């Protein structure tokens, strides 16, 4: 076997390794993608029925003022985008940054026509945080409240 062909064979082997790695990565990625994408909706979109019925999703907005009710480890509150609000129930400990009138993201699903059951509540570091869609309305709201 000449040196050249051996060299080519080796190059072929490398290419094979790289292709296999790429294929494996792509396969894993696509599979994981389908299962793990979480879509994000505002309460209005949820009201309009845009959110998936039997799949987890995320809902973002502000914690409606005066809506927080705690009963032991169970917390009820409403998430609002200033047009509509959706009641949320969560069992567990809320993050420190969870406050009335602050941005919040809840992860979970609709468990009733008008009830969102959250597995996870994420509050923002940033007091200035707000979902981008509602910025103008937000600003007005924050000035008046």
């Amino acid at each position, binding site marked *: 076997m000449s040196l050249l062909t051996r060299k080519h064979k080796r190059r072929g082997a490398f290419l094979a390794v790289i292709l296999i*790695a790429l294929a*494996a*990565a792509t396969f894993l990625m696509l599979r*994981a993608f389908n299962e*793990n994408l*979480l879509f994000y909706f505002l309460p209005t979109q949820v009201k309009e029925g845009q959110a998936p019925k039997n799949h987890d999703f995320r809902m973002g907005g502000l914690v409606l003022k005066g809506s927080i009710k*705690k009963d032991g480890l169970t917390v009820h509150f409403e998430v609002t985008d200033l047009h509509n609000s959706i009641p949320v129930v969560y069992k567990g*400990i809320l993050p420190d940054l969870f406050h009335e009138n602050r941005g919040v993201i809840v992860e979970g699903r609709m468990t009733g026509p008008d009830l969102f059951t959250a597995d996870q509540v994420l509050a923002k570091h940033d007091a200035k945080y707000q979902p981008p869609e509602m910025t103008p309305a937000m600003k007005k709201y924050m000035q008046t409240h």
Partner: protein
Amino acid sequence: MVAETGHFALILALLVALVQATVPLIGAQRRDAALMAVAGPAAIVQFLLAAAAFFALMYCYVTSDFSVLNVAQNSYSNKPLFYKITGVWGDHEGSMLLWELILTGYAAAVALFGGKLPQGLRTRALAVQSMVSFSFLLFILLTSNPFLRLVPAPLNGQGLNPLLEDPGLAFHPPILYLGYVGFSMAFSFAIAALIEGKVDAAWAHWIRPWSLAAWCFLTLGITGGSWWAYYTLGWGGWWYWDPTENASFMPWLAGTALLHAATVVEKRGTMKAWTVLLAIITFSLSLLGTFLVRSGVLTSVHSFATDPQRGVYILTLLGVVIGGSLALFGLRAPSLKSGALFAPVSREGGLLFGNVFLSAALGTVLLGTLYPLFADALNLGKVSVGPPFFNATFVPIMIPVCIAMPVGALLAWKRGNLQLALKRLLPAFLVAAALAVCVALLMAGQGRFITAAAAVALAAWILVGMLTGLAQQIHFREVPFKTSLQRLLKLPRTFHGMTVAHIGMACVILGITGSTLGRVQNIQIMHIGDTVHISGFDVTLKKVRDDIKGPGYTFSRGTFDVSSHGKPVTVMYPEKKHFTVPPEDTTHAAIRTTLLGDLYVVLAGHDAKGGYITRIYYDPFVVWIFLGGGLFAAGGLLSITDRRHRVGAPQRNNEAAPERKTS
């Protein structure tokens, strides 16, 4: 006045940067020694100016000069001095200034300590570094000027987010940036080498200490950040695959690949183009990370600044840097021919294997991090890619890397003997298998016990495998013990560094496995006197004191007695702080750390009926994650201190003619 002086220093630095980015480069092309000599002093002056601006801002913070907008927004006169100082980089403007300071600091270090480098390469690298610096100075002056005045000055500031008021976090950004920005040096050397059209073993040797230093800092920064999240956020989580975390993790992955690839260039003179490309990619990912964090395009638990104008600027910069350097790379890469033969079964083959998989893993993280951006831009809806995605893609891709790690380390350069290597690794295999069986039997029936057994086996395989490599180097048990010991001391530090860092990987695997598969947690309402049983511990709530006064906050402190089988173990005091400016609560978990596992107690608040909401975890082996991270950095440090980097650094064969044809 001080603020204006700082502002002025920044403008001067911008002008010096412009000179340093152009004059030496023209000099290098024309081989004009006088023009080239500008680079070194310019780099030092630029660093001093950046330092002057930085300390001017620090002075404004320390003296609580609220007529400076940035100080008014982020500080408070009652704040302890320590946090006034660290508050300088607690916000966007200050942290960008720190970025710039470190960027110029690396350039100044090359100017001062890079005497061994050939003049052409050093000059060009300093010029490229200065181009980056120029862009950042412009960015700071145009969009993020920390010295803007506020009229009228308020009586007091708005305070720093109290979450950031933590000694661990105070030092987190500087260390992280030393890593992030440090890769700019590797980038500058890569671009300089592309301009020169010359990449060789000596080049790989020169970029090594700079890349290693950056990598060590980045490792420490990521580990420290992870540890901070673990003990501060009160969730006991140490990694969330949050965009901000990924932003620092991606350059780390690329940097890890770069270090390994550069070894191949240094030892075998192959994989040149790939190494240069990695240097470009690593720094581009650092810039991308800055963009992701600073622009606020991704919703993250971390990002504390959002401003589209800044995002657009950094994105443009990113486009120019990536586009420009890749174009240059495309132009010059064909000339980077490698001379040597490349056998698949060899040390370099093993390193290439690791590189391919690391890059694939990097690709998945990149995709998962950026996908929400693309989806939003293409109107596919607002999505987030959660931790399950990363766990399902990143982890399986890393497994072959870990399996191959000890094998590759045992193969010789040029042409290895796979059979011999595997034979030597038989003890490692047996230990791993035995441990796997033990773990499987111990945990049988509990969910995912097979995964746990496999992961523990993998950790053992790496540990024993790396020790086997060491034993082979010192001819352990083949020669008298004393001779072995002498050989051990004489081994190059790079070898020790490699062994230590790879053993760190074994520790990280152990920690991640213990914490993700073995964690037990209880959330409950406790009254005084209640006891919770967890993993062999009895945790009893003794008392809670409310409204204790602290500087700038009040706090509640719980007292929990911990005993095990009737014997007292320790007393734990978790706290909850209530800040007044800005009004925030922070949770301070009490953690009892041992090598076997952490007991983690959180006092989360009251319920309406006089009970206390508590969260109690037992996290097996979690501390090994942070110890492993420490070992990574220790390994890197050992490698930097290798004597080859200090004396007798390799000289290019044709040192007399450092300039090569450039076109």
